[in-house]
């Protein structure tokens, strides 16, 4: 079961005080749907504003990415650059 941690303040308001979640979803898309079902608005916010780091590797806009069993999933604000 992937363990998800929500970083930053961008989407925090949707989840109250909760910042860590265990999810069933086996892909980023399913994880987002699951979080949206639990905390309305959170999934949409994640999709628009967050990147997903899976076991230390940052993915931007990668809904189809697989979430291995026990994966460390960290949601961080999207990163740009100069």
């Amino acid at each position, binding site marked *: 079961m992937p363990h998800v941690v929500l*970083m*930053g303040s*961008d989407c925090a308001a949707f989840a109250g005080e909760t910042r860590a979640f265990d999810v069933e979803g086996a892909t980023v898309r399913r994880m987002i749907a699951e979080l949206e079902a639990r905390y309305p608005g959170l999934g949409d916010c994640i999709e628009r504003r967050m990147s997903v780091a899976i*076991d230390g590797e940052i993915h931007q806009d990668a809904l189809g*990415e697989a979430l291995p069993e026990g994966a460390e999933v960290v*949601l961080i604000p999207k*990163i740009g*650059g100069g």
Partner: protein
Amino acid sequence: MTDTLERPANALNVVGTRPVRPDGADKVTGRATYGADLTMAGMLTGRILRSPHPHARIVSIDTRKAKALAGVKAVVTGADFPSVDSDEAMGGEGGGSIRDLARNVIARDKALYDGHAVAAVAATSPEIAEEALSLISVKYEVLPHVIDVEAAMAPDAPVLHADMFTAGLPTKPDKASNIAQAHESKRGDIAAGFASADVIVEDRYVTAATHQGYIEPHACVASLSADGQGMVWCSSQGQFMVRTYCAKVLGMEASDIRVIPAEIGGGFGGKTTVYLEPIALALSRIAGAPVKMVMTRDEVFRASGPTSGSVMEVKLGATKDGKIVAADVVLKFQAGAFPGSPVGAAVMTTLACYDIPNFRIVGYDVVGNSPKVAAYRAPGAPIAAFAVESAVDELADKLGLDPFKIREVNAVRDGVQASYGPTYRNIGYVETLEAARKHPNLLAKLGPNQGRGVAAGFWFNIGGESTASVNINDDGTAVVASGNPDIGGSRASMAMMAAEVLGLPVEKVRPIVADTASIGYSMLTGGSRTTFATGMAVTQAAQKIVEDLKRRAAQTWDVPVEQVEWMDGSAVCIDGAKRGQALSLADLAAKSGNTGGPIGAQVSLNAQGAGPGFGVHVCDVEVDPETGHVTVLRYTAAQDVGKAIHPSYVEGQIQGGVAQGVGWALNEEYIFDSAGRMENSGFLDYRMPVASDLPMIDTAMVEVPNPRHPFGAKGVGEVPIVPPLAAVANAVRDAIGKRITTLPLSPPRIRAAIDAK
């Protein structure tokens, strides 16, 4: 989704070498075509009328006299642009929304900074355009203004946007504020951490707003024909970005705008947005003729860029052995007139070099009456690093530790959880520290009034969406096309990676930057992504061609494709009746018509797995105690680059970042008068370093490969601007024995510190 290709079995022949740059001759002979160089038949000159007030309600704009002037073909104001209400994010680069972008391009109800565009004209000559501007009558209701970040945060500050309520708080405030967003990141028990510390340092740090300082001003030519088809020729960091933003600001379809990228004379993040292009298109639509617009340097300073000024508070606690056990950081960043400072990135990067069990980082994105900030190399990271790396230096001093030692004790390594969340993998920070420590420059003895400063820096680097095509010509040469403007050597690196895979000499590969109608979408050139992400697309396209060439050779020989290998630019039959026979790329290209037609491949991908980069810099300075002038004696920059595709370009990126960082540290700053107008909007008064201000910047490239890139590359363009502010400040501290916590370290400020002894 992307997968890493297998590393080519053969040793590298092209990657890692230093061929002549493909764009070099044109640039040094003046033949390269920049944004301002295009001229078209019937072209008009566009000019912008800018607000002289930092904060004012626009009561009315009367353009009748301007329109009546002979030679004036078009006049526009904010009323001529559609109302853009979308709060859709612009994307990761500059921050902010499309609505704010539109209102920054041209003011609607309020002018929000000195220089904010309020009207524009197109005329048959520059002189007529200037005269037309003088005939436009704008009635302003001048409002109180605020620029200083802490003043803008005060409860009684003039509020810029009545509909802006601080985001990121547990509950929505009931009062509008200039604080657009609050960010917070924390771990562990900060109170317990400080309680366990043997030594605590605490200080307040201030940086000024600085400009990216690209030599080429913003410039474009736009033509919008009667059938609604638009063309834009401009200098930017992304032709697709220009197309998207113009379409959204003007309410057009993206397919109705074609953007042709010009050569770019520096961007550094500042050309990741639009200023002139939508206005030029709007003028052209009315005039029925192409419109050229070129900013003056004064306009570049007053109405584009800069990056944030800031106020930061840093508190660090450590045990006697140098282990940092607690950190408390507050970052207050100027966003300019609209939200979108890089404080979010600063929150994520500020402690990214360190493994600290207990911390809290708070950031505030604060609007004020100055130009909307734009991205600037590693946005936010140099500012935050100035504060934290200065504080780490103070901590080392208090503990009697070597500045390398304290960084090594607290260094992040593979397996450590980054302060911004994920667990690090394949990072080279410790190796970079070691490379800096062992550099021969550190053997130099320091004399009187001289000092040495050390600082570290981090940047994420990103991947993202890229498209590239590789096509083989009938003589066996190749053309590589990508959708990324070349701001730091990407044409060379694209050609080299293609040449490596194809087995061609790099001189036989011609790299080009294609326009928006000629190649698939690519995110802009920024975030140190192009060599990584677009390079991945190029490599995969070349690999596809190799597979196709093997198939064609097998067809020619009438053997199974499994009997064909690609070796040094030729198909070689490795088994069967044709064993030992070879067909070169030129042979196969010449007969391509007989084996399936033209040879080419295009790959579009969303590259994942960009590896983060770390840099460690050492700066030696001498301070003239009479004048306060700082001379940089030596500068050493070590960086983990993954794999240097073209080492000279990588060194150039590192040296360029250092040069900009040194300017930021020593001289550069936006200076406003009491009326909120910029006082130094030219290169004479806004002092950037020139060649004679700097020594040779020595580089040490550390190569800890990124396994997700075919050749191991990591982004390199942003890390090198992160450490210099603190490295210089720490060196000055070492030279004069006193910490100055406000940038720039200009001669008057240093003299004041010396005199205060």
